[in-house]
């Protein structure tokens, strides 16, 4: 821990650092999962995740609790960083991503479960980018409906309806895969 200031400002700085550290410990895997889902590139996801935390650290004093929870704020930063990366890729015309994981199912999975996973992956591939993002926020990052609404700039009702339709679409696609 670095204590560069003294007195009340130092205490405030320590307080904001402690909050940031707790947020980081609580969310690092979720942020990575969300960013990786958006980019579909584990290596780029690592860079963007680190960048998102660095940005969050630099802006930690600008966080306003009245505008939402810290997790929603952090995922908003991560989303912007990931979208910037997508834009950069689009400009450069590079689509270099890691090859897909050949291991479709865990060793402990049975044949039925493996088939189900394969069907779900295929169904996910058929979703739009926004639907995949919603799935990533809900199941990858584990955000609540309210937090997702803050991140996407939608109403909570809109997010619920959107999620319901997306799940329906996924189920239909999975059934069609079987």
């Amino acid at each position, binding site marked *: 821990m*670095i204590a560069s200031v003294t007195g009340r400002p130092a205490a405030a700085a320590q307080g904001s*650092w402690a909050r940031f*550290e707790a947020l*980081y410990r609580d969310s*690092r*895997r979720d942020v*990575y*999962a969300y960013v*990786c*889902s*958006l980019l579909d590139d*584990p290596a780029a*996801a*690592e860079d963007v*995740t*680190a960048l998102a*935390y*660095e940005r969050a*650290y*630099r802006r930690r004093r600008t966080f306003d609790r009245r505008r939402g929870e810290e997790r929603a704020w952090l995922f908003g930063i991560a989303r*912007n960083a990931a*979208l*910037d990366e*997508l*834009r950069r890729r*689009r400009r450069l015309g590079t689509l270099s991503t890691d090859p897909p994981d050949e291991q479709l199912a865990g060793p402990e999975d049975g044949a039925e479960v493996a088939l*189900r*996973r394969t069907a*779900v*992956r295929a169904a*996910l591939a058929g979703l*739009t*980018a*926004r639907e995949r*993002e919603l*799935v*990533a926020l*809900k*199941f*990858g990052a*584990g955000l609540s*409906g309210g937090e997702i*609404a803050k991140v996407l*700039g*939608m*109403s*909570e*009702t*809109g997010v*619920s*309806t959107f*999620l*319901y339709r997306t*799940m329906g679409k*996924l*189920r239909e696609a*999975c059934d069609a895969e079987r």
Partner: protein
Amino acid sequence: MPNAEPLEPEVLASLEAIDATLHGEPVDPEHAELAELALILRDERPVPGDPFLARLDRRVETRFAPTTKPRRFRAGSLRVSAGAVAALAAVIVAIVVVTGGSRGPMTNRGAVVPSTSTAAAGASSSAAGASSSAAGASSAAAGAATSAASTAASGSSAAPGRTPSPRVGHGRDVTQSARLGLQARAGQIAPVAQEVFDVVGDEHGVVLSSHVIVASGVPGDATFSLQVPAGRLEITLNRLSRLRHARVTMREDASADITSHVDRTAAALAAVRARRRSLLRQLATTGIPTEADRLEREAARALAQIDREQSELQRLRHRVADSTISVTVQSPAAIRRPHHRAAGFTFSRALHDAGHILLVAAGVALIALAVLAPLGVVVALCAWVWSLVLRRRREGALGPS
């Protein structure tokens, strides 16, 4: 964002089933398939590798200390620098405006009098006096060399700095005027005034106006507006500078070349005279009554114009032929002496100075605000537009919805 409308029961039940599944709680068999899908989706989420997490932990522990890589350009520092530059520019503009305003009168005077020179002498007899040339290019006196006539005061009087005056002649029409400041003791105002009258009379000049105040208990002062032949201006000033009971405190000479003005007026006069002669010739030969009336009217107008041009020409020649001198005589008590005022400390003086400083500071702040406020609005507008554009681009990067 507020929830605008309630969810349908089916939607609500499905979402509750998903949430319950993710929290490890049992769900209704009706939603078993949905629950299974939710669990698979959760298990499918990408998992970061331990080496990456270890690296990230280290970066967080060091609070994202800069690495050896060159630092990326930071928009924040640009904003701070731009703000500082804008503030500095505003303050400079404000200072220029505030201080520039105080030079206005001098500039104006220079515009009225094309060539002006001022010499002032202090009260000290030994001091040569601070000599300052006033602003104003001597464009009118271009080509005219300065005369070498001396106006040094004699005796114990201060010697004002010599003020060059344009040479009159070589076919140029130059007007000349002067201002003379004299200092006399309180009881000597009347004798000095008499000396001024005598000098003017000797030099064939006239006193256009005078104002002399001599009274007991009052310091007294006198002002004179004099007119002398241009050729005798220098000698008159020399004599006025050597009055027995007064000494020179200030002298200012001014000149203006009006040759072009005189030439234009003379040309206009010649032209209108020629026109009138022509009209009179036509009048003598015409036999048509209406034409004769018209020619008579035009000849009358030409005559009136001839009168005007002649008057103007005479006025200009009079200005060239006669020079004006403005003389001010003051006793020491009536002279404002700033160096006395500056000596010592009084509460009222300090208060006055503080008020003046506050006034100037407020003026600078106001002007700076006037510059910065519109600038700030423009910057805020640009930032808002840029944020909208950036948001749209980012959403576009995600692909169509």
